[in-house]
């Protein structure tokens, strides 16, 4: 009986710690999503007046759980409130200013296609995200969260990414460009 209890406690702890590790990584990534806003510049029409909130959207799988909402809570950037929205369809996500796309392969390519021409900063973490036409990809370097940026695709969408941010990122280009 006691032995069984010990095994149970052990597994419980292992699960909790795994979750905690995961949640720390995504907590950082959630913070990054918020901070990207501060270093990117949208066309004036895309931001609207001060009452218009800046939208961080999530398309596809949501690895953040409630962390993103928590991070964004009560935060303002440049006078704009920040809100989080979740989308099922890529065409609905065109209104988002920053969009985390939790998709892969054909599905990802389709979503990016649907977002073409919209001033949306696309962020992902799948290996082929940049090659598929995404702008910012999270990577893990030296056990720390870092990111790659393709400034060309951001520019195509009418976005300006601050030099400050570019300095921190690994600058990449899509295959075939």
């Amino acid at each position, binding site marked *: 009986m006691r032995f069984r209890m010990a095994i149970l406690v052990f597994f419980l702890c292992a699960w909790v710690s795994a979750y905690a590790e995961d949640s720390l990584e995504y907590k950082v990534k959630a913070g990054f999503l918020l*901070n990207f806003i*501060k*270093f990117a510049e949208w066309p004036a029409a895309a931001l609207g007046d001060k009452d218009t909130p800046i939208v961080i959207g999530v398309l596809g799988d949501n690895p953040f759980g409630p962390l993103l909402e928590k991070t964004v809570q009560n935060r303002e950037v440049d006078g704009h409130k920040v809100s989080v929205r979740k989308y099922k369809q890529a065409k609905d996500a065109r209104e988002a200013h920053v969009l985390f796309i939790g998709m892969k392969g054909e599905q990802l390519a389709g979503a990016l296609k649907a977002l073409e021409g919209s001033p949306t900063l696309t962020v992902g973490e799948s290996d082929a995200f940049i090659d598929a036409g995404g702008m910012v990809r999270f990577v893990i370097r030296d056990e720390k969260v870092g990111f790659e940026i393709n400034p060309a695709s951001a520019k195509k969408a009418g976005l300006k990414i*601050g030099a*400050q*941010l570019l300095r*921190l990122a690994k600058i990449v280009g899509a295959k075939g460009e």
Partner: protein
Amino acid sequence: MRLRDLSIKWKFVVTIMIVCVSAILASVAVLFAFEYSAMEALLERDLESISRVSASNCTAALTFDDPQAANDTLSALSAKPAIEAAGLYDKEGRLFASYRRADDKNTLPERPGSDGLEKASHLTLIGPVMLKQERIGTIYVRSDFSTLSNWIGASAWVFAGVVLATALAALLLSSLLQKPFLAPIVELADIARQVSAKKDYSLRAAKHAEDELGLLVEKFNEMLAQIQTRDSALEQARDELEVRVQERTRDLQETNKELEAFSYSVAHDLRAPLRGIDGFSQVLLEDYGPRLDETGQEHLQRVRSATQRMAQLLDDLLSRSKVTRSTLRPSQVDLHELANAVLADLRRQNPERQVEVTVDAPLIAKGDPGLLRIVLDNLLGNAWKFTSKKERARIEFGKTQADGASVFFLRDNGAGFDMAYAAKLFTVFHRLHKASDFPGTGVGLATVQRIVQRHGGRIWAESALEQGTTFYFTLPNAEERP
């Protein structure tokens, strides 16, 4: 040399230089102070902009928690050598990234202080790191004052150069500009010096302008002209006087010579008739003596003795004349021998007299032996004569020292004389004793004085009535032999 003894030209130059250099020093000091405060403000502004740029460059690194990137950014501050250290602190005040100059010895504070500029041994600026109007951290930048001290070092050289150049320019300009002012004065001083050195009052200073200096030159020249006039008048007067004196002297000498020649010829010519009188009165006495009575014989005797006295007088006058006219032939003479010869003659004439005589030996002198013989003839003769009435006659002849010179003396214990008449002692024909007491012509001592004077010497006497007489005489040419 003291400053006030400098020439007027240098005084002028030094004064101008002092004025110029102090003016430029004052301006340089003001300029320096002004520039210094400007530099200080510039340094502060510079530090502020550096910190702002650094802060702005670090916002992303701070936001995305990338200390490496922030360190890289801050290390760019090494391009500013004055920056000692910089630190980036996150929102919670933890040191996030830092930069320290290689030689910096101070550590960065663990937590940033309050915002602001602090000026102490270093210049420290603490300011916010802003992103989209939100404070995301704090930047700390510390600078040394090397910018300022480098500037002081560089500008000190520049200012020193400016001061030096000004001093040189002042020296150059003032030595050029002093000419019109000072040339007349310098020239005047030069002329004055020449006048004083050469005693040449014909020199004149040139007048350059109608100003005060021109007036000075004019008056100076007038003064010189007056002196010159007076000087030449004086010189003329002196020349005239000299000519007159020479004329007078020549007249006197001629008159004197004529007189001497006259007295010589009188004495000489009177001797022939006198010899006639003497000869015939002797013949008269010898041939017709017995026929004359006693009174006649006595009168004839008187005629004879008067004639003989007159002959003696004429001889003395002739010998004195000879002393005056003959040329001096000096040689070594021993007055001791000369005196003994004279004394021998005197003893032969009066063998009955007992005289105690002391003569020092030797008594070397330089002089004309013939004339010195006359001197001793007279002096010893006088001593012999004036001691004739003493029971114990004494004569002493020797040499003593007076006033550092050798003096011959001749002392007797004879009749002596009253010193009140000493001045007339050497006057010709002047006698201090009656002819009846002591016979004599009154020519001897005058002759002696003439001889001593011709030898460049001096003769004088000390005496008192009935106490004896001492004659002193010098012969400067006398040379002593050991």
